[in-house]
């Protein structure tokens, strides 16, 4: 990463805490607008609880609809947040510095949004207690751990707890800055309580550096397991064509990375646009993430292709019938074409051009397209498979989402956006200490007649230099 602006620590504090310590004009209307959408979604959910799941479009044989497609989508988005943060930390990529926090926070809100939908889908969410406690206390009958629906909450719960704690630990130094700069006594006390008395001793900084790397190394295997387990919700079923596939786990993971990294790029563009963070998120950052996206998108497309090859190679007639339905029959055929065009055909060739990669506007719109496409991908995995579930004519069916389902799905999008806005109002979306560290560690060295930027690798203990230099 060559491109940077040399800033003082005070300037970094002023610029990155400006929107935390003051209220931007657009903030309140945005929060109210999103709050109304969230309230409408929750109202629709209350209506569903009162009248029963009959108000959804779910019916035999399609018992999984918008809710489950949306669940898989948000789990996917949540993945790249921590994944991108963890991999960039582990590889000590310089361009990670302004990106990691927003990616990690997006993970937390996306996971909560993801958990919404299956809880709503079951119709009586309070009965989720039976996943933890015996559902028959007298006889002590516990949940059946052989069911993927018990694996799911254990994996997603682990991931949510891990990513929330990860975000909290990495926030400590920045909360300490807020403690020092907040105006009101009450607010100051809250920040003082939250930062746990962080003062910035060499020991605390050393452990912060190790924490980032160690937690990244621990969260990555969880990240891989979560989407594998989500894919097994489908893949372990032997009765549904199109689902029972060994490729599902890696295919779901790479799909999650594709949509998630796109969401991070979209978030970076929004940060530049809404919070005027041009001094921190530069065209070089967009260039770097777009290059990553080209690799991820191409790998995803390869897995997508393989999934189809494996399905068609069997020449199994129900499987071929399902693929015909997915790709050529109304209404799934047009959706399939839109999905492929939006998630690969339009964005990837565009990202091959440097001019487009370095443009926040182009990156914003292309990554939005990717995520529309990837939502459709999940829809096309879940619903057509169930539509053809049985060969008995009376059981053939289709699925039309009801208004209640649409409102709840829209609510999840508004919830994540609202969560991010509220978070950015009380805590910084760009890690100040990480940016400052980049400034301290960045120097200019002379190589022959050329002056070039150079960076010290963080986290190396004394003895490394003693031994090697």
């Amino acid at each position, binding site marked *: 990463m060559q491109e940077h602006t040399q800033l003082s620590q005070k300037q970094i504090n002023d610029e990155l805490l400006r929107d935390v310590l003051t209220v931007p004009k657009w903030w309140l209307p945005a929060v109210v607008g999103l709050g109304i959408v969230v309230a409408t979604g929750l109202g629709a959910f209350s209506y569903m609880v009162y009248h029963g799941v009959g108000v959804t479009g779910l019916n035999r044989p399609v018992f999984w609809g918008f809710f489950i497609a949306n669940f898989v989508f948000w789990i996917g988005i949540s993945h790249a947040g921590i994944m991108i943060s963890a991999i960039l930390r582990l590889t000590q990529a310089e361009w990670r510095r302004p990106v990691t926090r927003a990616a990690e926070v997006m993970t937390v809100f996306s996971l909560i949004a993801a958990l919404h939908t299956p809880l709503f889908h079951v119709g009586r969410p309070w009965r989720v207690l039976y996943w933890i406690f015996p559902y028959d206390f007298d006889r002590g009958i*516990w949940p059946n751990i*052989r069911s993927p629906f018990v694996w799911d909450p254990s994996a997603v719960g682990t991931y949510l*707890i891990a990513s929330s704690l*990860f975000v909290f630990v990495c926030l400590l130094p920045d909360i300490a800055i807020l403690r020092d700069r907040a105006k009101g006594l009450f607010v100051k006390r809250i920040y003082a309580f939250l930062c*746990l008395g962080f003062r910035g001793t060499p020991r605390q900084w050393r*452990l912060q550096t190790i924490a980032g790397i160690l937690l990244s190394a*621990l969260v990555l295997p969880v990240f891989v397991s979560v989407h594998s387990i989500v894919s097994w919700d489908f893949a372990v079923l032997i009765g549904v064509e199109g689902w029972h596939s060994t490729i599902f786990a890696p295919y779901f993971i790479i799909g999650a990375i594709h949509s998630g990294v796109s969401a991070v790029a979209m978030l970076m563009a929004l940060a530049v646009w809404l919070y005027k963070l041009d001094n921190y998120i530069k065209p070089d950052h967009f260039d770097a993430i777009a290059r990553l996206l080209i690799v991820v998108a191409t790998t995803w497309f390869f897995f997508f292709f393989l999934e189809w090859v494996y399905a068609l190679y069997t020449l199994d007639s129900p499987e071929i019938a399902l693929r015909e339905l997915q790709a050529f029959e109304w209404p799934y055929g047009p959706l399939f074409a839109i999905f492929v065009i939006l998630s690969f055909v339009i964005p990837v060739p565009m990202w091959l051009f440097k001019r487009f990669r370095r443009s926040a506007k182009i990156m914003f719109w292309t990554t939005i397209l990717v995520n529309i496409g990837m939502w459709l991908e999940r829809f096309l995995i879940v619903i057509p498979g169930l539509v053809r579930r049985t060969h008995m004519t009376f059981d053939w069916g289709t699925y039309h989402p009801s208004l209640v389902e649409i409102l709840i799905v829209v609510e999840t999008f508004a919830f994540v956006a609202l969560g991010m806005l509220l978070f950015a109002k009380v805590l910084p979306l760009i890690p100040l200490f990480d940016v400052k560290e980049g400034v301290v560690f960045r120097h200019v060295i002379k190589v022959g007649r050329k002056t070039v930027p150079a960076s010290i690798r963080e986290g190396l203990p004394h*003895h490394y230099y003693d031994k090697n230099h």
Partner: protein
Amino acid sequence: MAKKSVLGLYTEEDSAADALDNLRDAGFEEGEYELLTGTPYPEGTFGEAEPEHHLFRWPLIGAACGFTGGLIITAGTQMAYPLITGGKPILSIPPMAIIMYEGTMLGAIIFTIIGILFESRLPRLFMGAYSEKITEGHIGVTVTTEEGRTEVAEEALKKAGVEGEIIRGWE
């Protein structure tokens, strides 16, 4: 006897390093003085000692606890109501492995977080001598010692070219 802390602020890395040298020369030991900065610096920038920690033990202990918890939940719940299905064994290993894996990772991560806080000496109830200028780029050198020795500490801090007044506080 209550301890008192004093803080000197510096704008240059070299001055802060000189302050640490002066404190060592004045007979203060590691642990009595500390550096406070608003950003991480490469280790040894100020000639300070490398902090020792045992963080890497924490995830291992956590993983062991999480694994045990996962084993108890999965094996225990199946054995609590032993229903033979299709003539198969009561304990179904593959799903057990999934939940035990998640338990192991959860334990490792929770213990790592506890370890990070413990090894960072957090939470800290009293700030001692502290200045808000530290998070704006000043480098603080703080000394926590018996009341009788604070004057010696102040002298050592001033000799390195402290900016402004010495800040005093109680530990």
